[in-house]
C-alpha cells in the first residue's frame, strides 16, 4: 500500500518535473502553455493521490482548486494573450537548448543535494518526491532567467509556484487549507496584475520582448 503510494508520488513528481524540462527544448509559446497546463493537471492528480492515500480530505479541495485555477483558468487566459501577441510567437532564448538541458540537469542534482536532510528527516511515504519538487523550483528559476518574452517569464513563474505547491503537498500533505486558499487568491490576483502589465508593455513598447525594458539603469 505504502509502496504503491510512494511510487505513485514519485511518478507524479517526475512527470511534473519532466513537463518543466520539456519547456526547455520546445519553442513557441503554445508549447509552453500546454506543457504548463499538463503539469498543473498532473500536480492536481498528485494532490488527489496524496489525499486518498494520506487520508487527508482537505487535499481534495486543494487538488480541485489546482485543477480549476492552473489547469483551466490560467491556461485560458494565457492562450488569449498568446493569440493577441501572435506575431511574437517565435522564441529566442539567451541560452541554447543543449546548454539549457545540461544546466537544468545540474540544477536538479543540486536540488537532490540540498533536500537530503529533508528526505532524511521525513517519515512520510511521499518524501522521495521532494527532491524533484526542489529541482523543479530551480529549473523554473532558470527558465525565468533565460527566456526573453514577458509571457514565457510568466509561465516560468507559474511553474515555480507549481514546484512549491508540490513541495508542500509531498512534504506536509499541504499547508492548512485556509492558508492555501489565501495563496490561491494571491496567485490569481498576481497573475491578473501581470497580465495587465503585459498588455501595458505591449501598448507602450509595441512588443512583449523583455529585452527592451532597459531604459532604467544605474
Amino acid at each position, binding site marked *: 500500500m505504502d509502496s504503491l503510494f510512494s511510487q505513485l508520488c514519485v511518478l507524479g513528481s517526475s512527470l511534473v518535473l519532466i513537463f518543466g524540462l520539456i519547456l526547455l527544448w520546445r519553442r513557441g509559446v503554445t508549447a509552453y502553455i500546454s506543457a504548463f497546463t499538463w503539469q498543473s493537471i498532473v500536480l492536481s492528480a498528485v494532490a488527489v493521490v496524496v489525499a486518498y492515500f494520506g487520508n487527508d480530505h482537505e487535499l481534495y479541495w486543494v487538488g480541485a482548486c489546482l485543477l480549476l485555477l492552473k489547469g483551466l483558468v490560467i491556461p485560458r487566459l494565457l492562450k488569449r494573450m498568446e493569440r493577441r501577441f501572435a506575431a511574437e510567437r517565435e522564441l529566442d532564448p539567451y541560452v541554447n537548448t543543449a546548454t539549457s538541458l545540461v544546466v537544468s540537469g545540474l540544477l536538479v542534482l543540486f536540488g537532490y543535494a540540498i533536500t537530503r536532510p529533508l528526505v532524511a528527516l521525513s517519515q512520510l511515504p511521499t518524501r522521495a518526491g521532494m527532491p524533484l519538487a526542489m529541482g523543479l523550483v530551480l529549473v523554473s528559476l532558470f527558465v525565468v532567467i533565460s527566456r526573453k518574452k514577458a509571457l514565457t517569464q510568466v509561465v516560468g513563474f507559474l511553474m515555480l509556484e507549481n514546484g512549491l505547491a508540490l513541495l508542500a503537498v509531498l512534504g506536509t500533505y499541504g499547508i492548512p487549507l485556509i492558508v492555501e486558499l489565501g495563496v490561491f487568491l494571491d496567485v490569481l490576483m498576481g497573475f491578473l496584475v501581470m497580465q495587465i502589465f503585459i498588455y501595458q508593455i505591449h501598448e507602450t513598447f509595441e512588443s512583449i520582448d523583455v529585452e527592451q*525594458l532597459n531604459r532604467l539603469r544605474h
Partner: protein
Amino acid sequence: MALAYLLLTLHLAAHAIGVTAALVARGAVGRGLVAGSGLVGALAALGLGSVCLGAGLVPTLSATFLPLTGFALRIDGLSAFFLIVIGMVGAAVTVYGFGYSAAYEGRYSLRLLGAMLNVLLLSLSVQVMADNALTFLLAWEAMSLSTYAMVLTEHDRPGTVRAAHWYIAITHAGFAALVAMFLLLSAGELTTSFAAMRSAALTPGARDAAFVLALVGFGAKAGIAPLHVWLPMAHPVAPSHVSALMSGVVIKMGVYGLLRVTIDLLVGGPAWWGGLILAAGTISALLGVLYALMEHDLKRLLAYHSVENIGIIFIGIGAGLMFQSYGLTTLATLGVISGLYHTINHACFKGLLFLGAGSVLHATGTRNMEEMGGLIKRMPRTALFFLIGACAISALPPLNGFASEWLVFQTLLGGSAIPQPEVAVIMPIAVAMLALTSGLAAACFVKAFGITFLAIPRSREAERAHEAPRSMQIGMASLALACVALGLAPFVVVPALGASLAGLGGVAPSAVAFTPALSLRVPGTSGQMSAPLLALGLLLLMGLVPVALWILGADRRLRVGDTWGCGRIGQTPRMEYTATAFAEPLRRVFAELYRPTRDLSIDFHPESKYFVQSIEYRSEIHPWLERLLYDRPLHGLHRAATWVRRLQGGSLHLYLLYLTLAFLALLTAARWWR
C-alpha cells in the same frame, strides 16, 4: 565652584539666546543681538576657563537626556585651557562679525550665519568639556556642520561649494576614524565615558590602532599634511571672521583631541607614537610654509600658514610624547606645554591675521595680493594690527610667537637626553626643519605685509580702500593686545599651562618648576629668556636712539622726493616688485618640490630678434603630493563606482540571475554550514 556653574549656565544660555535671536531678529538689531550674545557667551567661556584653571576646580555636569550614554561634561585643566582659547578668539570674532557681516545684509542669509556662529561657539566649548564619547562626537559633528554651513555663506562665488564639499568630506572621514577610535577605547563599556576609557585594559594592538585612528581623525581636523588639503580651500571662501574662528580655534580641536586621547585616555604610549606626531608636524610645518610662499591669495596664504603652525604645535607635542616614553617627564611636560603655548598663540595671531585679511577684503573686494598695495596709508590701524600679527607669526621677539617657538626649540634641544642616539638624532633634524620653517615664515610675511600694505596701490580698488568700521577694529585690537600680552608674560602663561596638565596621566606637571621671576627658565636643558626685559630694552633703545641723535646734533631735516628709478621720472605701480617676483628666488631653490609648469612665449619684433614686442609668461604650481595622494584613490573609487553601476544595467534577466545566484550560494552555505 558656584561661580563656575554660574558661568557655565551663562555661557550655554547666551549662545542659545544667540541662536534664537539670529533666527528671529533681522537687520542691525539682529546682528547686534547675535554679536552681543556671542560675546557674552565667549566671555563666559573665557571666565569659566580662567576660574577653573586659576582655582584648580574640576566642575562636572551630567544629564540623562542624551540617549545611550547620557550627556556628560567635566572641566579639567586641559578643558579649561581650551575654553580660554575659545573665549578669547570667540569674543574678538563676534565683535568683528557685527561690522563684517553688515555687508552681507540682503545678499546672503544672515540668519543662518548668526545662528551657526553661535552653534559653533557652543559646540566648541561643549566638545572640550565633554566627558563621554557620544557627547564629544555630537559636539564634534555640530562643529563640523556649523562651520560647513558658514563656509557655504557666499555660495554663489566660484569655488565655494567645492571647497565646502572637500571640507566636509575630509572632516567626515576623520569623524569616522574618531568613532572607531572611541569605540575601540571604550572596549565594550557602554557608557563610553572617558573615565572608563582611562582604566580600560586594552591590548597593545588595540592601543596602537586607537592611536593611529586618533591621529588620522584629529589630524584631518587640525589640517596636518597630507590631510590639510581642505584648509587652503575652505578658509579663503568662508566669511573672514569665520575663517579666523576656523583657523584660530576649530582646527585646534584636533590638537585638543589628540592630547586628550594620547596623554589622558591612553596615558602615553611607545616612542613611535611621539615620533609619528613629530614627523607629521615637521612635514606639515615645512610644506605649509613652502606652499604659503607661493600663494598670492592673502587668505589662502594664511590658510597654508595654519598648516605650518599646526605642524609646529605637533612638533612640540610629538617631542613631548617621545620624551614621555623614555621616562623623561620634565622634558615631556615641557614639550606638551610648548605645544599648548603655541596653540593659544596661534589662535590669537592667526585670528588677528584673518581678521586683518578680512578688513582688507572688505575694503578692496579682492583677496589677490597682486592687486593691493599702499593700504598702510588708507587703513593705518588695520595695517598696524596686521603688522603685529605678522611679527608674531614670524616668531619675532618679543611677541608671543617667539615665546612659544623658543619653548619648542628648547624642548627639541633637550633631545640629547634620549638614551638611544639613533632616535635622538631625530631631534636636531626637527630643529633644523623648524628653524627653516620659521625663517621662511618670516620671508613669507615680509611678502604678505609688504606687498599688501606698503608702496603704491596696484589697482583702483586698493586705491579707494577705506579703514574698517569701528567694531572690526575693536575685534582686531583685542587680539593684537592678546598677542603682545601673551608674548610679554610667558612667566605667567607657562605655569598656567603646567597647571592645565594637572591630573593627566601621560605627563607629570609637578616635575616642572618655572621661576616666577621675570625670566622664563627651562629646567633640564637650561636656557633662559626674559620676554618683558627684552621688550623693555628694545623700547628703551628705540626711545633713546633718537634722543641721542638729537643730543649729538644729527641733522633733522627731511625732504620728500620721488623714488629713484634709474633716472626715469614718474613711478607707476607696474614698476613695483610683485608677490610672485618676491617669492621667485625661493621658488627656484625649491623647484624640486614645487615642480612648476612654465609657459613662456616671446613675440620678437619682425625686424630684429633683439627687440621684443611682448612676453607672455605663465607659471603654475600644482601640489603634486596631493595629486599623488588624492587623485589616485579618488580615481580608483570612481572606477569602482563605475563598475558597480554596471551591475544595474537594466536587464531583468541579469537581475533575476543575481537573485538566483545569491539563492544558490546561500543554499549551499546553509546546507553545509557547521
